[in-house]
């Protein structure tokens, strides 16, 4: 499904600011896998997702999706296969466009755009139905500008938009980190439901150990650009927060005791 072969990524290579962000990553993800990704700040999690999505190109290595080599595809071309939700709720939607316009934009993800009307009247009922699933009352606000919505509402809309055309790969980069606990929980449940319903191949970055353990069927921990831990099946099921924290201490030493994830 997703194949990462020998992915190496430097930032500012050859300068004093050189960062070795991804260190020869090899990772095979099967169709329908729901992988949670953990690791301390700067471990390379976002960089990994960005390499898959095409936000930037790796310095070496190969990226395969559905056994197509997409390594040289620009980001907009990979959009046919990939949907993303970012940590920042502002990044996933257009604030000055209406809810229905945003949904119409997303319903054409990876498709040719022509001179047909952007929002078609036959789409409206479908949009309303999908918005109803969120239970946030957005189905009555199709003509409201998205800039008027709260961060949580925007993120819920973004989740919906990311999956209304089934993506081959769904990438979630701390997509609930900016939300209050209650809303975060709602969006997380929504995520789980959508992923299950459409059997999406998913990578979800989180700093919450509990979520990392309870969601998905596979867990990987990144550390200094490499994969430190890769647990599947029974191994993952039997994992406890304590085990995971122990792993963190082991690799990072005591100085990380105040890392945000330990506060969870």
């Amino acid at each position: 499904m997703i194949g990462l072969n020998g992915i190496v990524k430097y930032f500012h290579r050859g300068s004093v600011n050189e960062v070795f962000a991804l260190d020869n990553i090899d990772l095979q993800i099967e169709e329908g896998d729901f992988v949670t990704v953990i690791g301390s700040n700067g471990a390379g999690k976002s960089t990994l997702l960005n390499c898959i999505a095409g936000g930037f190109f790796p310095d070496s290595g190969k990226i395969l999706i559905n056994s197509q080599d997409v390594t040289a595809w620009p980001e907009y071309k990979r959009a046919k296969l990939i949907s993303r939700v970012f940590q920042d709720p502002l990044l996933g939607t257009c604030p000055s466009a209406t809810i229905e316009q945003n949904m119409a934009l997303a319903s054409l993800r990876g498709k040719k755009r022509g001179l047909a009307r952007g929002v078609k009247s036959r789409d409206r009922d479908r949009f309303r139905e999908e918005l109803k699933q969120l239970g946030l009352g957005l189905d009555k606000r199709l003509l409201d500008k998205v800039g008027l919505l709260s961060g949580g509402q925007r993120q819920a809309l973004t989740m919906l938009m990311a999956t209304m055309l089934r993506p081959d790969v769904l990438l979630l980069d701390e997509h609930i980190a900016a939300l209050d606990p209650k809303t975060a929980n709602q969006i997380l449940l929504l995520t789980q439901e959508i992923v299950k319903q459409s059997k999406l191949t998913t990578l979800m970055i989180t700093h919450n150990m509990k979520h990392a353990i309870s969601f998905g069927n596979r867990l990987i921990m990144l550390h200094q650009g490499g994969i430190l831990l890769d647990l599947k099946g029974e191994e993952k099921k039997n994992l406890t927060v304590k085990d995971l924290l122990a792993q963190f201490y082991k690799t990072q030493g005591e100085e990380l005791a105040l890392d945000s994830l330990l506060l969870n």
Partner: protein
Amino acid sequence: MTWYAALGAVEQGLVYGIMVIGVYLTFRILDFPDLTVDGSLPLGASISAVAITHGVNPYLSLVIALAGGFLAGMITAILNTKFKILHLLASILTMIALYSINIRIMSGPNVALLGQETVFDAVIGFGVPAHLAGLIIFGIFALIVLSFIIWFLGSEIGQAILAVGDNPQMIRSLGVNTHTIIILGVGLSNGLVALSGALVAQNQGAADVGMGIGTIVAGLASVIIGETLFGCNTIARAFIAALLGSVVYRLAIALALGLEFGGFRFNPSDLNLITAVLVISALIAPNLKKRLMQR
């Protein structure tokens, strides 16, 4: 201000309104401050004038002018997107280059259209009094352009253009090549500006290499006036406001030029100064208001 002067100002407002619609597209929709327009307005004028003097149909000359402007805009956008030159600088480079190109096109700094057939002759042929011909033709063209741009921005591609100005990261991850969209948008904008210049040239009977100076400032002033007076909460409204803003701007200028304070009068050459001051005050007013409120 005489009735005749007011009529002239409305006429100017409509024809330059086509330019303002183009400026609104880059400046507000694409968030791409584009100075190419100072060169693409006279580009349109010179292409149209030279084409007409070579016997090309005046309407066809408008199409060629539009295409020329489109190309100029594309060059600015390509410099910006593909070669990573800052948009302002890219547009200044194209503008400067266009100065030489326009002189080449005209084989000199200007071309007169005396005695040549223009788009105005057609309506005058219908028995419309000559002094109303400009108003009618410009009104029709402005309305066509206005309807087209509103229709276009409602299309799938148009919605993508809006999104590029609003949230480029999002629209890229939805599969849109933002570079292509910017090239298309800036091209279209300059196409409209060139069309506006071509119509102006046919109206005043000459194209001149210097006629583009201050286009961007006049465009911005009109945009700001339009937004302030008529609002911009929907796309249709925003573009209608831009066009009306252009008319109000030309009326205000005509008014200012007619003023007299104890022997002092504004010259037409003071126009750019007045406009620049107008734009500056509109830009700093919100800031100033905030500071005063804080005290």
